């Protein structure tokens, strides 16, 4: 022992257990898949199919002008659904703009989840109701929120876990770094789920990072990194569930990287042909999360054509209901612009509200 060890040198974490496996973790299609709970798989299947249908419906709504914009999670439904299923009701989900499906899978009314993208308000749901934070557009900014919330819950003695979602591109932001570091130092009960879908809009992963994997970033914070096949819902669910349990028991945060692929363009406004080959998209169809689960379930006779049909019809009903509700015009009160800026409007806002009210009245009369 030298002075270095005594004084500056940390009680060192062994880096080895923090390092992710070199290959993404998989369950479906492996021998272990045989042991997976049949009920869980059926739930997952139903949610995946509904999720896919939801994505298709939302995209269709952009074409009909019913949504201002939609960042589809088609191809990423396994991550979206697994994130929702891995949490207890008392836990919190921190989604990004791409994760309306995770919010919906957690119970948020799909119309309310789509409010931001429809454009009648920003956050359409009460975050406290289902414990889903507002969809976050500024990249990676939601990650420190998740850490703060988890830290607060722990200080209060509540065994609440926060699961925060971010994209591969988002890992380059300073907020990613700061959030992971705070979580690690505080041993906060947070799970960070990075959906690595290969692109940040047009920018491929190779221009985003030179790391062995994004999960390897965990080591630099002294937390475990896990790498998982993001289109294998059972694997994602297992990894997240384990990380959530560890967090809940005081074991601190985990960084999970799920390898997946965005089958649609970045949003309906994007033209993906500018930056990727159709062949790449086609290749990923083989590894579609629904197909992967379906194969595994059929292998175990947990799924047959009739069930597939039923599930699809159920999804169709959900989609029809959503379409119908979204086709109703949003009821808007422009005076709401002033209602929630502060607990009490400032004198300045009262003046401005009066001006708008007068305008609206004049408009109504003419």
């Amino acid at each position: 022992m030298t002075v270095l060890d005594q004084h500056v040198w940390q009680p060192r974490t062994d880096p080895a257990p923090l390092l992710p496996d070199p290959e993404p973790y998989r369950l479906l299609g492996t021998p272990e898949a045989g042991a997976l709970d049949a009920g869980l798989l059926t739930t997952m299947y139903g949610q995946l199919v509904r999720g896919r249908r939801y994505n298709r419906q939302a995209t269709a709504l952009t074409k009909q002008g019913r949504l201002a914009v939609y960042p589809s999670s088609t191809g990423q439904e396994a991550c979206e659904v697994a994130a929702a299923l891995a949490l207890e009701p008392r836990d919190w989900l921190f989604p990004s703009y791409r994760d309306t499906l995770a919010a919906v899978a957690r119970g948020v009314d799909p119309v309310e989840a789509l409010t931001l993208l429809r454009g009648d308000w920003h956050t359409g749901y009460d975050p406290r109701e289902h414990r889903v934070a507002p969809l976050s557009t500024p990249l990676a900014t939601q990650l420190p929120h998740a850490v703060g919330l988890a830290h607060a819950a722990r200080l209060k003695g509540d065994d609440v876990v926060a699961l925060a979602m971010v994209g591969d591109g988002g890992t380059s932001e300073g907020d990613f770094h700061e959030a992971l570091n705070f979580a690690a130092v505080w041993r906060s009960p947070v799970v960070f789920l990075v959906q690595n879908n290969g692109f940040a809009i047009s920018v491929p992963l190779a221009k985003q990072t030179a790391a062995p994997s994004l999960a390897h970033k965990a080591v630099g914070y002294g937390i475990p990194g896990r790498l998982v096949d993001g289109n294998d819902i059972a694997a994602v669910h297992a990894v997240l569930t384990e990380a959530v349990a560890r967090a809940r028991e005081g074991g601190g945060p985990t960084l999970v990287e799920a390898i997946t692929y965005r089958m649609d363009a970045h949003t309906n406004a994007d033209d993906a042909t500018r930056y990727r080959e159709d062949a790449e998209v086609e290749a990923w169809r083989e590894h579609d999360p629904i197909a992967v689960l379906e194969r595994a379930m059929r292998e175990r006779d947990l799924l047959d054509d009739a069930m597939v049909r039923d599930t699809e019809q159920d999804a169709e009903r959900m989609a029809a209901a959503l379409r119908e509700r979204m086709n109703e015009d949003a009821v808007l009160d422009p005076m709401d612009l002033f209602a929630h800026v502060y607990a009490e409007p400032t004198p300045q806002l009262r003046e401005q509200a009066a001006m708008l009210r007068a305008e609206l009245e004049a408009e109504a009369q003419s």
Partner: protein
Amino acid sequence: MSTATTATPVAAGRKPATMAQALNRALRDSLAEDPSVHLFGEDIGTLGGVFRITDGLAKEFGDSRCTDTPLAEAGILGTAVGMAMYGMRPVVEMQFDAFAYPAFEQLVSHVAKMRNRTRGAMPLPITIRVPYGGGIGGVEHHSDASEAYYTHTPGLHVVTPATVADAYGLLRASIASDDPVIFLEPKRLYWSKADWSADAPEEVAPIGRAVVRRTGRSATLITYGPSLPVCLEAAEAAVQEGWDLEVVDLRSLVPFDDETVSASVRRTGRAVVVHEASGFGGVGAEIAARVTERCFHHLEAPVLRVAGFDIPYPPPMLERHHLPGVDRILDAVGRLQWEEA
């Protein structure tokens, strides 16, 4: 009774073009002329930018002249500082107004100060392109009018074009400037069109010079960027009310062209400042204050402001209630105490 005029000289070979195309052309011409010009940003290479302002440039000039960076705005601006320290002329794109905020420390604490702190030894000729403002139905964080943060930061130039010709001229001038320039691109004018040629950019739009877009005698509308077309429309509508409005397009917020603005207000005796950013502490406050300081005895009425409300930018379906429109401008003009004239 005067009619709308544009102050730009008629040049040979003018063709219809959008502001987006003029910006693209300005970048291309700068890249072609000066090997030290380098473009950096998110999605500006292969994709050509989410607004296609850099379309085709990576292909023409190579990845190292038009580079897709990792997704980190402080990193983008911070590395641009380093490149400029080595003699390059970086032009960075912030994808949207609100996504420039992560770079705020680099901007205020380094970009704006470097020349001064080194007694001029280390100028930073960086152009920071920021698509700004609303009116395009963008969801939250995509429509901030953030100009006041920049205009209050000494060491930065802040310019914003309102016409196709100025888009080209000002961007060329910004890139050529030896000082950092915040180049604010009005998103909702990207697809505005005009006849225009790429000739003589320096004459078209030197940094620091406002321009009278419409001459008039009753009152002056002072505006810039996205609000110029609204003001011109208001001025036309005002004719029916018997008002002959002058419209000044500032183009450059820093440096500020006191001469042109004051001359106009002294002539008309009344002024309304129009912008879409929130009014409280907005650029309009500065304009109203300095015009009043300079023209007090010529003023028949206080300088009024028509600005966005002091609220977070509204969701798409409500933005029209927030943005200054023709009616609100005419309303303000009507409050310029005509009865007392």
